[in-house]
């Protein structure tokens, strides 16, 4: 198997940051702000956490470009599906 050529990332630091972001999510969710602002903010925080997990815990940051492309390829399709079905009833 291929050998890791990088030092271990700061896994505990990322864990603490993920915990902090989760706490921020909980705080934001119940703020008396406009619903659309809350939705965008919460989705931004969730995507931030997901990207951290993918880059550092799943080591995508350190993988060959071809594997990164393989992992990223379904995401535009996912966005297209979600956007398309969201717009369905307005067209």
């Amino acid at each position: 198997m291929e050998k890791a050529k990088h030092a271990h990332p700061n896994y505990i630091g990322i864990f603490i940051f993920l915990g902090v972001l989760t706490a921020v999510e909980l705080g934001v969710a119940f703020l008396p702000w406009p619903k659309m602002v809350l939705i965008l903010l919460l989705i931004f925080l969730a995507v931030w956490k997901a990207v951290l997990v993918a880059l550092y815990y799943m080591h995508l940051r350190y993988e060959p470009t071809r594997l990164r492309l393989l992992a990223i390829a379904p995401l535009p399709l996912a966005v297209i599906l979600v956007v398309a079905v969201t717009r369905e009833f307005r067209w």
Partner: protein
Amino acid sequence: MAHAAPMLDDDMMVPPRGYQEGSGVYNEKLGMWVFLGSEIMFFTALIGSYIILRVAHPTAWKPPGEVLNVPLTAINTFLLICSSVTMVKAFAAIQDGYLAGLQRWLIATVLIGAGFVGVQVFEYMHLMDKGFVPSEGLYGSTFYTMTGFHGFHVTVGVICLMFVTWRAYRGKYTAADHRGVEVVGLYWHFVDLVWIILFTIVYLI
């Protein structure tokens, strides 16, 4: 001069040697990433369906915290994040050739993962006691479908992790070859990643 008939043998689909560069990763990891790509589309289909139903029928959903227990699920979310860090520490331990560390971190991951499933079962029982059942309507059916499929994935992950832990105690992994640990770890982190998204769209929005 007549052309030679194509060779219909086992080598027909093998590309010319110069084009077989490989993906740069070992087969098990590549296979897991291809599987995770299909899993992304699976959960996207669920989430996409959820979004269209929710936008089309906004009154079918209650505000965050009114029906679902957000504090309990936040603790469960934190548990899953903890299990991700124990999983990656297990991987780092065996990368360094530290077998005892691998064993301990894997045990912790199995216990925390099982704890997540236990809390989810408790949550389901509590919600059903209150009358929030899958047949309750769109809110109930989408909630149980999405969290249920995720819980199923966690359960499968715990079973796979138990198998990897058993192999770890038999000394099957080394610093030179720990493919099983890395591949099951990728699945486990993916399950954590999906929950991060589900927690936000199901419980907080």
